[in-house]
């Protein structure tokens, strides 16, 4: 019996030793730079989580195959350790802890959604680990004074204020009447703040200001109000559910409004699910394939679109494009820092000023990307609604089509 006990102890201690030595990945192993990411592969964000992961993977593959990252005369390749955060912010924070503490990751990529990024940022900040994130746009991420958080995307309050400017412009420079409905979550409320500011700036009047409960999939009452007050522009933001509900009920209730601006059209596959009913909707997007930004890894937007479609079998939503851009930012920062010291890399990240296929990237004090404007595209369909396209209409610099304004009334559609 005694001998058996001794053997068990011996074997288990050896096992422990071996496992302990394999657990501690370093940040850089051999010629590999290990990045850590927790993305939502299951749970309610899983479709966008997968877009995020695909975006990361495509960029890793592209950078590695095009010579990798050159630091100190040596060439390194990117590798990402993924965990599934189950779309749960508590889990995301745990995984950030795990990636840093157990896996020894020293450079992080962001998860999908503002909520999860918000959960992970305090952890990376505590360990002073840089995190380049591509899918957390909530303004509150950038007002907390985080030093190690960098977002390649434009903050949420800039999503739709372009639409208000556009409406004012179409109204002959005169203020407009705005109706808006926003879901009660951090992101949508930030978008709302942007509209409120734009309204103030242009002297426009907000006549309906509805806050949609999270669980709601009925906007009939809001739309009745729109019918009663006849605003110039209707703004809706409530993730994919909000976008789909809005289009469904606007078309069913035949609500005529001159301009309809929304978020998450792409993610909701709006034109595919609703066809012609979604026509003329204006959608905020971080990126569009027709934009003329260039870089040497992906070429331009069209090329990225083609490559991504070839690799994953579907056209890239902007969530994938911005995720790919995060890797380009890392590569650039490593090469400028010429070091793997987290502080030096952080400083290099802060000094980023580059152009990628996704847009110009330059971080403000708070870590948000301020040099890339949002674009608005308008859904445009052929006569029977079997094929719909997104055409960029604003800002004017990238517009590839003329804005249809006002939206034709339902009796004529």
């Amino acid at each position, binding site marked *: 019996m005694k001998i058996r006990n001794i053997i068990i102890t011996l074997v288990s201690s050896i096992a422990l030793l071996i496992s302990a030595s394999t657990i501690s990945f370093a940040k850089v192993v051999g010629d590999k730079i290990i990045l850590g990411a927790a993305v939502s592969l*299951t*749970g*309610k*964000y*899983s*479709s*966008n989580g997968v877009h995020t992961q695909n975006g990361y993977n495509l960029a890793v593959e592209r950078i590695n195959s095009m010579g990798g990252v050159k630091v100190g005369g040596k060439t390194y390749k990117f590798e990402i350790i993924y965990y599934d955060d189950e*779309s749960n912010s508590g889990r995301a924070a745990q995984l950030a802890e795990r990636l840093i503490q157990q896996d020894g990751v020293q450079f992080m990529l962001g998860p999908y959604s503002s909520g999860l990024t918000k959960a992970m940022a305090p952890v990376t900040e505590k360990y002073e680990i840089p995190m380049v994130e591509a899918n957390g746009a909530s303004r509150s991420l950038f007002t907390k004074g985080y030093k190690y958080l960098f977002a390649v995307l434009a903050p949420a309050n800039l999503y739709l204020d372009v639409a208000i400017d556009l409406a004012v412009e179409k109204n002959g420079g005169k203020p407009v009447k705005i109706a808006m*409905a926003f879901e*009660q979550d951090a992101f949508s409320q930030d978008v709302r703040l942007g509209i409120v500011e734009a309204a103030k700036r242009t002297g426009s009047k907000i*006549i*309906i*200001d*509805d*806050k*949609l*409960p999270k*669980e*709601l*999939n*009925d*906007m*009939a*009452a*809001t739309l*009745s*109000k729109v*019918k*009663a*007050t006849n605003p110039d522009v209707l703004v809706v933001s409530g993730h*994919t*559910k909000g976008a*789909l*509900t809005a289009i*469904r*009920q606007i078309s*069913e*209730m*035949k*609500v005529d409004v001159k301009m309809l601006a929304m978020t998450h059209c792409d993610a*909701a*596959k709006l034109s595919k*699910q*609703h*066809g012609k009913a979604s026509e003329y909707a204006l959608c905020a997007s971080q990126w569009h394939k027709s934009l003329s930004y260039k870089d040497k890894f992906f070429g331009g937007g069209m090329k990225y679109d083609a490559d991504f479609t070839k690799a994953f079998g579907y056209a890239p939503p902007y969530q994938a494009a911005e995720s790919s851009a995060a890797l380009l930012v890392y590569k650039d920062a490593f090469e400028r820092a010429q070091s793997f010291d987290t502080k030096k890399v952080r400083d290099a990240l802060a000094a980023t000023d580059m152009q990628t296929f996704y847009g110009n990237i330059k971080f403000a004090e708070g870590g948000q990307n301020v040099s890339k404007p949002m674009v608005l595209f308008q859904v445009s369909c052929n006569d029977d609604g079997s094929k719909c396209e997104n055409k960029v209409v604003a800002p004017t610099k990238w517009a590839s089509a003329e804005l249809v304004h006002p939206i034709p009334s339902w009796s004529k559609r």
Partner: protein
Amino acid sequence: MDFLIFQAPILMVQASMDGILLGILFALIAYGMALQWGVMNIINIAQGELVIMGGYIAYFMYLSGIHPAFGVIVSPIIMYCVGWGMYKLVINKVVDKDLFTSILATFGISILAQQLMNFAFGADVVVAQSNFGTTMLFNDMVTLPNAKIFSGAVCVISAIILVIYMKKSKLGRAIRATAQNARAAKILGVDTEKVYAATFGINAALCGIAGACIAITFTLHPYTGLPYTVRSFMIVIIAGLGNLPAVAISGMGLGVFEEWSDYLLGTEFRIAAVFSLLVIILVYRRFKLARKREYLK
């Protein structure tokens, strides 16, 4: 925003109609819940998930080219089997335990169902198109989607069929007997096990019908079942068990109240208003009951 009621009074008709059509849908789900609660003393937390599951059946019919409206026929059949299987697998082990155990069990089922649906159907929000068009009333001011009218009609018809079935058929009588006194029913030769399974199946079938209606009127997502559970729970609490007219009235009443408060106060007060009404009703009822109790003394 101020005094919308004077700006376009006709839109109160719109809000009321929307509320009634929404309420009928909720009432059907609530009736299933009340039935199950009354017969088996089980509060089904997975009710909303059954609804969403039924909705996905209609959605997949739509994807494969069949008109999703036929979902109201196919979906209850499939959902009956799902409910029956759920009873045989899990619920029959907790049916005679206390309420807490069965709530936990159905809560577990609800989480499992969410995850399985998410796994099987993906996390995208989806809709099925009925292309039913719109009915315009009052000089085009009131616009009612025909899909909603269709759903309302389907719900009313299925409720009527169910009531007749419960009154006339052998199984219906057995279900009612079991609800009154399970032990006595058993002594008199009712196979309560079978009755329970059938009740669970009928509830799931009702959810299936409602789900198919939701697929063509609202949106579907694996994680959006909970509001349906909560709402039907509320309706049952107000209406009491085994009282279909009361369930229908409280369902529609809540629907109308919800749409009105949304229309007049703003969407952010919508759910708050409904819950305040619930509190008021419960407090009122408590006073009424207290008075009755004094009588009995």
